[in-house]
């Protein structure tokens, strides 16, 4: 690997981390504004114009609050829990192609940290690892409500991982590759995968809601039954990490959904635009398009949260095991039959 390439990658990693953190930070603000809009309120409007400094104030509050570790908690694991949650949330971004290659001074750089040829499975692995942060934190708190929240999170994640994997299999049958970069390139222009896999996308979307513990699947932190769920005993920035990890997860899963199903950085008439404006502006516009898709998807997450009430626990399991899995298997069979007939 050349030095320039290495430097570019390091810069890219730092930039992507910074962007994920800023997006997560402003998602908290957006969530409150969206909630206010849906409930016909104004929302945060005190810190700065339209309240846009609110996330900074919240962050400062989180850092400065008293740090409490319960006497009977398992000290080390109590700290490992939130650290693991935020770590697994952050590392998912490594394989997402943020744009097509740009050329600077004779070098072409891919806007992707690394293109491993099992990219989809890597995302899947990181997602399945995410549950450990919640489980370890919930267990180490030594509190029955936390433990129940952690156990709910574990069973929910495992149940929905299965249908998520099955819904991706149908997509992989069409793309024939596990590399996210190649999947993004195949959807050039307007040939987005969602047109070919509508059912698969809906299944993936539902599972993404469940995996990020977003409402209506936020049973691990169901406050009417479990006080605060797995983070009942947490305070200060350790609580902040848990909340933050949820928003980063939302950002990453939106990016994955945009890449897998909504064409990633591709947009209609991109060849015409590239011919008119040159390759570099076209690539940068592709990044903007990708972020537009991601932001709409995040808005959709919030839209659902403030519209649909929470599931009951048995309904959650019924939906996962008796509806999503059979539908996902049917989707695989249908995809197989149709793609064989059309060949």
């Amino acid at each position: 690997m050349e030095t320039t390439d290495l430097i570019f990658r390091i810069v890219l990693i730092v930039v992507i981390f910074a962007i994920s953190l800023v997006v997560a930070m402003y998602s908290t603000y957006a969530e409150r504004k969206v909630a206010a809009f849906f409930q016909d309120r104004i929302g945060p409007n005190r810190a700065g114009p339209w309240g846009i400094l609110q996330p900074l104030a919240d962050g400062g509050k989180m850092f400065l609050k008293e740090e409490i570790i319960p006497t009977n908690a398992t000290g080390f694991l109590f700290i490992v829990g939130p650290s693991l949650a935020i770590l697994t949330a952050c590392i998912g971004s490594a394989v997402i192609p943020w744009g097509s290659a740009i050329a600077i001074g004779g070098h072409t750089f891919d806007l992707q940290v690394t293109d491993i040829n099992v990219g989809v499975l890597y995302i899947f692995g990181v997602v399945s690892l995410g549950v450990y942060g919640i489980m370890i934190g919930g267990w180490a708190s030594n509190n029955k409500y936390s433990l129940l929240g952690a156990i709910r999170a574990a069973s929910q994640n495992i149940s929905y991982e299965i249908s998520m994997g099955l819904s991706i299999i149908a997509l992989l049958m069409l793309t024939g590759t596990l590399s996210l970069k190649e999947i993004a390139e195949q959807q050039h222009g307007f040939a987005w995968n969602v047109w070919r896999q509508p059912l698969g996308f809906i299944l993936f979307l539902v599972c993404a809601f469940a995996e990020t513990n977003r409402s209506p699947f936020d049973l691990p932190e169901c406050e009417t039954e479990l006080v605060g769920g797995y983070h009942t005993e947490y305070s200060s920035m350790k609580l902040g990490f848990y909340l933050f990890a949820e928003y980063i997860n939302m950002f990453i899963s939106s990016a994955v959904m945009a890449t897998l199903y909504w064409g990633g950085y591709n947009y209609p008439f991109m060849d015409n635009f590239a011919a008119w404006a040159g390759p570099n502006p076209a690539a940068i516009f592709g990044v903007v398009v990708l972020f537009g898709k991601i932001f709409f998807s995040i808005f959709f997450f919030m839209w659902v949260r403030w519209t649909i009430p929470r599931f009951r626990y048995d309904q959650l399991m019924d939906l996962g095991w008796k509806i999503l899995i059979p539908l996902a298997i049917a989707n695989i069979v249908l995809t197989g039959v149709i793609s064989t007939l059309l060949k």
Partner: protein
Amino acid sequence: MSTFYFIAFLSIFFSILVISAKNPVHSILYLILTFFTFTIHYILLNAQFLAIVNFIVYMGAILVLFLYTLMLINLNKESEPVKPFMVKVAGVFGGGILAVAVASSLKLIGASNPVLLQNPDLGLVKNLGKVLFNEFLLPFEVSSVLLLSAMVGAVLLATKEKEPKAA
């Protein structure tokens, strides 16, 4: 090579911690770390698919279930079963046999020639898929049907039976 020795050391270190940890939940957490080092071993062998599957299936699913069960049954000193004398004797005997086997295998160190793979990319998804779907198609399909039927069976068991009409 030094990476291999470092990771191998970590594997053995964490596996010893698995059996020496007092708390069963800590044991499972060390087991997770052990499996993570196995994943790194697979990557060092250029078996990317195996590495990521080990990561997803063992670390991401099976050990989550282990942890789940252990958290629920809440093992501690008071509820720990005291093993009978004969079991202890059997354990010591079995461990001794294993030690003899390991010691005798030490004699063979350096005796085997390193195996050179003809195709170093054998572990990549594409090549693995070609082997599985050409040479081992029948066993592969049979085992996948077996797994699928196990899952369908579990779902079927979970569905409520229709209550018989009251006479």
